[in-house]
């Protein structure tokens, strides 16, 4: 474990618990477990297991990388809250990484990362030789155009590629490893903000419809 900083990375933004431990770019342990529910109960034991498999303890961790979404709101908060608690207790930084950045990690050329946004929408983020554009939520019937030759990547890639006549490719790296790599890069830069969920969708909340009465003197 002398090759570089030890990065613990994880993600629960969708129907999985994913975690990895890396020493620099070398993956020491990497696990993905598929689950619809139960991420809150499973995440910390899984982190213990990947650290154990890597022969490391929590105190060996140099930095934490965490997937910030977009995705399941509750799922994003599970990982981000755990990462912030871990960072506080270890005195090490937690670094937030967008899931679509992680999907595009290690790719080149024109790439569009695609996630199911539900309710007839998609989460999208374009990358130009790795340089990220703004992540957005787009309606499926009014998808933003993509440059010719754009490759779609991610769990919703088939749907988006089919609608826009683009091609599809698999991500270059497993999700937790990709998050770890990006976190490692960001860790080298000073002043990283605390990780915060990337929702890209407003909370469902309707303003009160019942106007108060006029008060007469």
């Amino acid at each position, binding site marked *: 474990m002398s090759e570089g900083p030890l990065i613990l990375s994880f993600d629960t933004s969708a129907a999985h618990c994913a975690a990895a431990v890396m020493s620099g770019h070398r993956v020491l342990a990497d696990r993905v477990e598929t689950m619809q529910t139960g991420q*809150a*109960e*499973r*995440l*910390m*034991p899984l*982190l*213990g297991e990947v650290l154990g498999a890597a022969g490391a303890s*929590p*105190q060996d961790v140099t930095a934490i990388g965490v997937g910030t979404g977009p995705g399941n*709101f*509750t799922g994003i*908060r*599970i*990982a*981000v*809250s*755990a*990462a*912030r*608690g*871990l*960072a*506080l*207790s*270890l005195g090490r930084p937690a670094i937030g990484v967008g899931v679509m950045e992680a999907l595009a990690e290690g790719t080149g050329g024109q790439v569009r990362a695609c996630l199911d946004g539900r309710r007839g929408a998609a989460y999208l983020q374009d990358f130009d030789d790795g340089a990220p554009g703004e992540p957005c939520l787009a309606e499926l019937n009014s998808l933003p155009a993509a440059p010719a030759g754009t490759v779609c990547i991610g769990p919703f890639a088939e749907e988006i590629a089919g609608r826009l006549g683009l091609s599809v490719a698999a991500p270059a790296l497993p999700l937790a490893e990709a998050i770890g790599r990006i976190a490692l890069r960001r860790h080298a830069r000073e002043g990283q903000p*605390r990780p*915060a*969920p990337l*929702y890209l969708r407003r*909370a*469902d*909340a*309707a*303003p*009160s419809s*019942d106007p*108060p*009465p*006029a*008060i*007469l*003197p």
Partner: protein
Amino acid sequence: MTMRDPFLMLGIESSCDDTAAAVVRSDGEILSSEVTGQAALHAAYGGVVPELAARAHAERLDIAVETALAAARTRLAELSGIAVTAGPGLIGGVLSGVMCAKGIAFGTGLPLVGVNHLAGHALTPRLTDNLPYPYLMLLVSGGHCQFLIVRGPDDFRRLGGTIDDAPGEAFDKCARLLALPQPGGPHVERVAAGGDPGAIRFPRPLLDRPGCDMSFSGLKTALLRARDADVAEHGGLPERRRADLCASFQAAVADVLAEKSRRALAVYMEEAPGTPSFAVAGGVAANGVIRARLETVAAGAGARFVAPPLALCTDNAAMIAWAGIERMRAGHRDGMDLGARPRWPLDTSSPALIGGGRKGAKA
């Protein structure tokens, strides 16, 4: 493992719209208690929006813990455990608290204790007044209303509770209907002071039924009808009439709580407690008119009346740390698989509430 006194406990609370962290010593000394509310966040929506609350908690909890540690002039390494609200409540916020607590426990190796939010309220009289078991507790807040006989840190008997809304929620609704600010309780009480409590005869739901169960949703509807009648008659709500509506509404709530408290005290006194005590917690306990009525009922039953200071009656993390202290002393520990429970009744043996829902009693 037995705990050597005195020890320090971190408490974390995020089950509704307050993000809170506290450090409490096992002898009852509160070293710090930080509470950050979200009133402005929810103001436009006429109530707490669960998703908005969860979003705020997720980005405030670790900061609240840091602030509480700094205010207590201590460090995580000086602590003996971490207590966190694991339910019942708004699940998004509870989950953020549980995950933050587990992250801290994972990194420090400190023991973790999941606490029932209601147990936090119910055990507060022991933190503030060292009240001996068993005592009768009325928990009356914006989200809860129930009578409990508290026999131990993990031993509660539920005598009854609301079958629909909580009184605090009804006060908030009353304020909204009468163009008063939120949270409604203090404003309704202030305006009520200038009104006639006998002006409008509002219903006293379930007073004609035996037992300690209560209902407040019909009262809200009755208030709405009375207001609409006034608005129709005057083309608006006269200030004077608003005061009467507030006073009459408050009187109805006070009557229900007083009578049900009298019945709950009678049941409690059958247990022949050594030091008969009636404690209240929750924001509604801050209402002066209600509190005076409850004090009278307690005196009539020969029970000591205990009302913790308001800051420890409303949601806070000191009560969670304290409940954690009591649970740790009793040998409780939770693992890294601790989950969050939106529904978590304190008393699982008493019959479930009417209207508790098909998933079982909420609280």
